[in-house]
């Protein structure tokens, strides 16, 4: 929605330019803008959440994997599932700051290597007899390596006091901590095809899964991709509501979207104990029913926000 609205308000120039991995065409001219946007636990964009923060940076031989179907070679110093690095198969992991910094840098470096490989393939396709064609682009250990699912100290809270919509319907303003639980099972998923592999094509990788950066946490060139909430909210003027879910890991990302939003009328609310899908996070509860009203609370709040404005 943020991409749409940014293009509708600004025209195709928003998604064109030499900084873009893939540029949009002028076919996106004259789109009718909407009057407001509700972001429900929106993430920063697929290239960030399913891409640069998701890939396992320990893989060092992508060219051999993609070109010659070689097995991934793992750098043990960057292996998030090695207990020597802080992985805990039974609960929350604890990585050192040194490991985390190396990991975030390594994720960005692997993403940049993959982008270069994909662009090389794209240029080959465009120079072929079928310039509109595509090619497989399969990235093993490209999924299920988000270390903030393992180490709950990463992206754990808002930076500033923000509104928390509590289960009883009241709102308090505070630093909001995520109540999510660790997911050590992603170690197994990362090795699979269905759960750990980005099964993409060259074009789908570049257009919806790739973003340039120097650090996956805070060194991302968000506008290098057009699939970026962070980039788009800076070009949107209509009223926006950001609803973050406390039982998930996008609280800080939503706060960033809110902070960067260019809308004069903007709001951020965190829903206590809600999952990404708005339902109660029962595994986060300290007692049964602690977060039983998440769905009602969220939609009541949204409906009031809409009615108050429109």
């Amino acid at each position, binding site marked *: 929605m943020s991409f749409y609205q940014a293009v509708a308000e600004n025209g195709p120039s928003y998604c064109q330019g030499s900084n873009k991995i893939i540029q949009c065409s002028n076919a996106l001219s004259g789109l009718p803008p909407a009057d407001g946007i509700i972001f429900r636990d929106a993430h920063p964009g697929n290239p960030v959440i399913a891409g640069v923060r998701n890939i396992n940076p320990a893989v060092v031989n992508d060219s051999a994997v993609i070109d010659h179907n070689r*097995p*991934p070679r793992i750098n043990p110093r960057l292996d998030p599932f090695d207990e020597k690095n802080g992985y805990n198969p039974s609960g929350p992991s604890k990585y050192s700051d040194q490991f985390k910094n190396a990991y975030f840098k390594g994720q960005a470096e692997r993403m940049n290597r993959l982008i270069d490989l994909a662009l090389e393939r794209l240029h080959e396709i465009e120079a072929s*007899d*079928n310039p509109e*064609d*595509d*090619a*497989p682009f*399969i990235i*093993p250990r490209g999924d299920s390596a988000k270390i903030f699912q393992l180490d709950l100290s990463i992206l754990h809270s808002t930076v500033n006091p923000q509104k928390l919509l509590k289960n009883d319907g009241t709102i308090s303003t505070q630093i909001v901590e995520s109540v999510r639980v660790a997911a050590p099972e992603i170690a197994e998923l990362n*090795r*699979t*095809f*269905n*759960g*750990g*592999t980005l*099964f993409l*094509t060259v074009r789908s990788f570049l257009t919806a899964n790739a973003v340039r950066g120097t650090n996956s946490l805070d060194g991302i060139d968000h506008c290098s991709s057009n699939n970026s909430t962070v980039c788009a909210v800076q070009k949107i003027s209509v009223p926006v509501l950001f609803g973050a879910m406390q039982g998930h890991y996008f609280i800080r990302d939503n706060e960033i979207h809110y902070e960067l939003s260019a809308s004069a009328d903007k709001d951020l609310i965190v829903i206590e104990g809600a999952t990404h899908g708005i339902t109660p996070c029962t595994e986060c509860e300290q007692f049964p029913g602690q977060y039983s009203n998440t769905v009602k609370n969220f939609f009541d709040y949204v409906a009031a926000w809409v009615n108050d404005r429109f």
Partner: protein
Amino acid sequence: MKTKMFLAIVIVSSLVIATRISSSLAQGNPVFVQLGQAKGAVYKPDSGPQLQIGILVMHRESNYMNNIACREFSRRGFVVLCMNSRFENNEALVDWELIPLDVAQGVNHLKNVQKVNTVILYGNSGGGVTMSFYQAVAENGPSVCQGANKLVQCGNNLGGLPPADGIILSDGHPGNPILRLRSVNPAVNNEKNPDRLNPRLDPFDPKNGFNPEGASHYSDEFKARYFKGQAERMNRLIDDALELLQRVAAGKYIYTDDAPFNIPKFDGARLLSLNPSIRHTTLFPEKLLKNDGSIAVQIVESLAPSRPELAEANQTFSEGSREGLTVRSFLSSNAIRANNSMDESQIDLCSTNNSTPCMLQQVSVPLLAAANQASFQNLIQEVEINYLYANSADKDFIVVEGATTGVTPCANCANPATSYANVTKNFFDYAAKWINDRFSSN
């Protein structure tokens, strides 16, 4: 294959359309329904009495929630549930042996929520084998899709599915694996080097008979070699896939569950779409539903134009490789054992569960098989063969003059599309009458 008597006399009869279409039956607001992991849209007349007959429309992965059958059947007084399976728009995700579970959700919805007492399965193109598979399992249980001869066996979770009361196959092809068997380029003899072609088997080499401007003409020797070569390449691919799957299962591969299985030049090398001498007519005199609504019985000639553009498509990833498969989706929904691609007696029809001629041998309810004369894949004889294999005591076969696979008038045939302006009306009128004649008193 069963035989039938040759009928030399051309019979022309008028179609009596029992079902009148009126604007009062128009469907105004299809209703979305979630059906387990599948989903659907219910189309029915906006007003009127409780309807007794429901029609279920689905394909293994294509979006059929707005298929032409949804509105055409609802206009004719039926409840129509148009579904998308859990694999919508994702061929690489297809686990064919789970498809009946989605169809069952639809049958149960029609019976239990829409309260109809008769359910007709409607399969267009690849929806035909979807419905044939479902009905065969529903009538006979999971043993239909189990056994040592199967590349992939179904599970016992397919037990106890509710059978439907009839099936309509609209240009329903023989199944995805047989289509692939007849579309794979046999000139590739080394999967690790798919650009190196055996020139004796290259279908797009003018020396072999290819015509880039129109209809190709291949020699009988080439065709015989080609059809054998297609089966041989398919068998090699199956062996490669099974070996790879074993390595995956044994933990000796990159992945632990499935694996990419990209097959260059896997589609588009369909000789019967290039050379009009191959299966370009029905085997026997059959009913042709003509544009004026009359029916003639004759050997019916396909109107499908030759497709020399397949030469280019075969080289692409998006069409020639079908955008990439996995080992499991290949074996489950794209592979079949054979010794010759064009001779049913040399195809192990039941080595896959995605096989219309296999499954129809296990179906007893009434069957209407309709072939579309301008089907882009030149399917008329293949649909006829499905019909001939069918075990149903009550079965009917008809070819719709000038119709595309999508049941619209052919716009690139020799005659202008206006020559076939009535194909949609003619087919759905015929199908509605076929249903009402059998089930309206239920």
